[in-house]
């Protein structure tokens, strides 16, 4: 049956890194004028496959065909010559120069550049592709969303027929993501083929024509988006039926106020006001979710409660004891457990799992003035077993995956049965399996009677876990709602600063 050749076809791609096989005999085909999602958990091999297509890696086995012709792509330069462009998660832009200069950078061979003509060409491209961008703007003054548009124009300007987007919405605000989707639809209708790497199911459902799912480096299948649903895709991704955690409707022993904030104010790292008189309380046996768009004071609030940032006004107390501006040690001594936003800033990467597990309470591991190495190791072995951490006590933390690193931190905190838990962005960057595990653990703690403040930018997470939801906007609490009264629309408005 004759058919139009694929825009891109990859056959039997295998790629190994040392002993790890990142891709195993993967077939992938992209039709002309379609948006196809490449879906999979972290570490499923999506990015590796696309880096091979873009010439950043070279496959150990397998062939690539572009427009029906075998293509030897050994560097991004070859890929661009074959009409393949890629926008990676980390932009390759030079901040101090203009949009136009960034776009023509490395693309012009001429010694002198007619900048006016170049500006006009970029402006024309911007119009033609329907992606608004100011050619003369300096990249350093652009928002992340605008920078992404520059990257897309850069690829299109080089006559890309195939555009690879690596988790493009990870850095975008919801409105920016919507704009991106509109642009992609227009580009698709004008004949561009797009590969959309993601692990967000609702995005995949919203924008793509077909979905290819990878699981542990292997092809799990390719389906038409119209003929599938989120639950089926999730099943293909994780290879098992159950998905998501189940929150028991019965609360734990909910009752007394365990954490109380009264008019807490604080500055951010640039000495600007980040928190304005924040007050709320968390009771035992409940999870209070703090929702908000990134950068509205969540990080600063977490740091104030963790004891790593001073507050400039107000009071904090935990279990009836004041901990305003106390250090981490004092805070932990009142029964507060802390799971911070940035995993890498809270473990010492070059130290072992066992050492990191003992670090917060080192004085408990001293015998006759010396470190009790046996106890440190035994302690680690117990926690590794109890929390199913894939690591050995003497492995350096930096060799662990994000999920296992988070489990180390979780284990370190939860083993002490804290009565108050401050947890920020607990599942950021984790794959589905680890995410589920972390959420399940938090619910167990709630059941046990802990008071949990869950600070998260993942609204689904907030909705799934919280008993009450507070919304923070520009350093102020907009409202605190019982979970039953909170729906996405209402939260969305509050997150944008609209009182409802």
């Amino acid at each position, binding site marked *: 049956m004759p058919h139009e050749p694929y825009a891109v076809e990859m056959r039997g791609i295998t790629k190994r890194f040392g002993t790890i096989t990142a891709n195993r005999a993967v077939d992938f085909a992209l039709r002309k004028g379609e948006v196809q999602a490449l879906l999979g958990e972290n570490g499923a091999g999506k990015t590796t496959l696309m880096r091979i297509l873009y010439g950043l890696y070279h496959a150990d086995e397998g062939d690539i065909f572009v427009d029906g012709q075998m293509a030897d792509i050994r560097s991004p330069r070859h890929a661009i010559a074959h009409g393949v462009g890629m926008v990676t998660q980390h932009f390759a832009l030079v901040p101090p120069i203009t949009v136009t200069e960034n776009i023509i950078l490395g693309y012009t061979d001429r010694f002198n550049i007619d900048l006016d003509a170049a500006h006009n060409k970029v402006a024309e491209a911007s119009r033609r592709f329907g992606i608004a961008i100011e050619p003369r703007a300096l990249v350093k003054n652009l928002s992340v969303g605008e920078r992404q548009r520059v990257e897309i124009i850069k690829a299109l300007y080089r006559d890309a027929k195939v555009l690879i987007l690596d988790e493009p919405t990870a850095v975008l605000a919801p409105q920016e993501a919507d704009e991106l989707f509109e642009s992609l639809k227009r580009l698709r209708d004008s004949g561009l083929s797009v590969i959309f790497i993601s692990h967000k199911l609702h995005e995949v459902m919203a924008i793509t024509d077909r979905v290819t799912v990878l699981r542990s480096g292997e092809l799990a299948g390719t389906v038409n988006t119209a003929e599938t649903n989120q639950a089926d895709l999730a099943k293909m991704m994780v290879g098992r039926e159950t998905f998501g955690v189940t929150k028991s409707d019965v609360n734990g022993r909910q009752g007394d106020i365990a954490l109380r904030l009264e008019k807490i104010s604080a500055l951010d790292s640039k000495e600007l006001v980040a928190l304005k008189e924040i007050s709320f309380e968390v009771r035992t046996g409940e999870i209070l979710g703090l929702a908000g768009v990134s950068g509205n004071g969540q990080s600063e609030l977490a740091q104030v409660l963790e004891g790593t940032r001073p507050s400039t006004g107000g009071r904090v107390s935990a279990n009836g004891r004041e901990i305003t501006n106390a250090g981490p040690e004092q805070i932990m001594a009142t029964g507060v457990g802390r799971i911070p936003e940035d995993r890498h800033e809270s473990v*010492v990467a070059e130290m072992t799992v066992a050492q990191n597990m003992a670090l917060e309470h080192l004085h408990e591991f001293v015998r006759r003035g*010396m470190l009790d190495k046996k106890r440190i190791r035994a302690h680690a072995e117990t926690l590794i077993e109890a929390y199913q951490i894939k690591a050995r006590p003497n492995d350096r933390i930096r060799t662990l995956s994000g999920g296992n690193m988070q489990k180390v931190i979780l284990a370190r905190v939860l083993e002490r049965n804290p009565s108050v838990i401050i947890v920020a962005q607990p599942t950021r960057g984790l794959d589905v399996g680890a995410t589920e595990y972390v959420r399940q653990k938090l619910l167990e703690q709630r059941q046990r009677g802990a008071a949990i403040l869950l600070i998260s930018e993942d609204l689904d997470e907030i909705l799934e876990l919280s008993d009450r939801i507070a919304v923070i906007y520009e350093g102020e609490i907009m409202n605190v709602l019982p979970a039953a009264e909170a729906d996405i629309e209402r939260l969305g408005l509050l997150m944008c600063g609209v009182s409802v």
Partner: protein
Amino acid sequence: MQIKIERSPAPVWFRPLIPLLAIVFTFVITASLVLLVNANPLSAYYYFLIDPLSSRVSAIEVLVKSTPLILTGAAVTFAFVGGYWNIGAEGQLLMGATAATAIGLQMHGVPAWIAIPLMILGGFLAGMLWALAPALMRVKLAIDEVVTTLLLNSVALLIVSALLNGPWRDPISQWPQSPEIAPSAIFPKLIPRSRLHLGFILAVIVVILVWFVLTRTAFGLRMRAVGMGSSAARFAGINVDRTMLISGLVSGGIAGLAGVTEVAGIHYHLIDAISGGHGYTGIIVATLGTLNAWGVLLAALFIGLIDTGAQTVSRALGVPVYLGDVIQAALLLVTLGFLLLQGYRIRWRRKG
């Protein structure tokens, strides 16, 4: 052929081999200098590495030369492990030597068992005191200690010169050198009719203490945590400022001890060339010893060997004695380079 450089840390077993590879590589590249003066590199290296060990006298001399290097190397290690970049061992050594001289001059009629501990304590405190200002500025005002500790080295040398040209000028010879310290303050010899003195034992004891503190105590683990990730250490409730201050001060104190051993063990009076760069060489020793106490001991012995060999090689082959310094400097650069490069691997791939 296509060559690619990928990030991939070397396996743990490989790390101790890095200093050895660095030494071999350093000898390969410095061979060109030996060839420039028409000498045979192999015989030069024979005189550098083997000849000093072939006689008892010069083998003992290696230990003598290593003594201050063990101490400055341990001093630098103690600071670097704690994330405090003390480049001021040279100045701290000079202050230790000054204090040792000041005490030693007053010890006439005082028995050795009082005089010697007093000098050791005084030298330690003086080195510590000299390290105090930069450490406080680092912790309280976030002023880069690399600059302040380095600049204070010159200040320390000027203070020594001022003393030697002023109050301490030798009354008899009028040379800019201090009078001799009291006989009871002089370190006893370990081996009769050699220069090997009590300071060597002191240095080895310091190495053992540094090893113990860094690897066997909670404070050592906290220090390492601060050095390897200060934000994580702060998060875990470790008092980062205090830990850093202590590692900077103890480092200064250990460097001060190197000044004591040079005054009380070798010269018996203060001269402005009392150090001759031992403080800076300590940085080489600490790096080559991969910030490990036993590694420091080995590295200091190795540098002591090269120092001793440099004399022989210049006598035997007419190679300038400064070749020894060139080798040491090249060794630092090569070791640092290797330590950086171990995080990467090169992959060759045939085309097509």
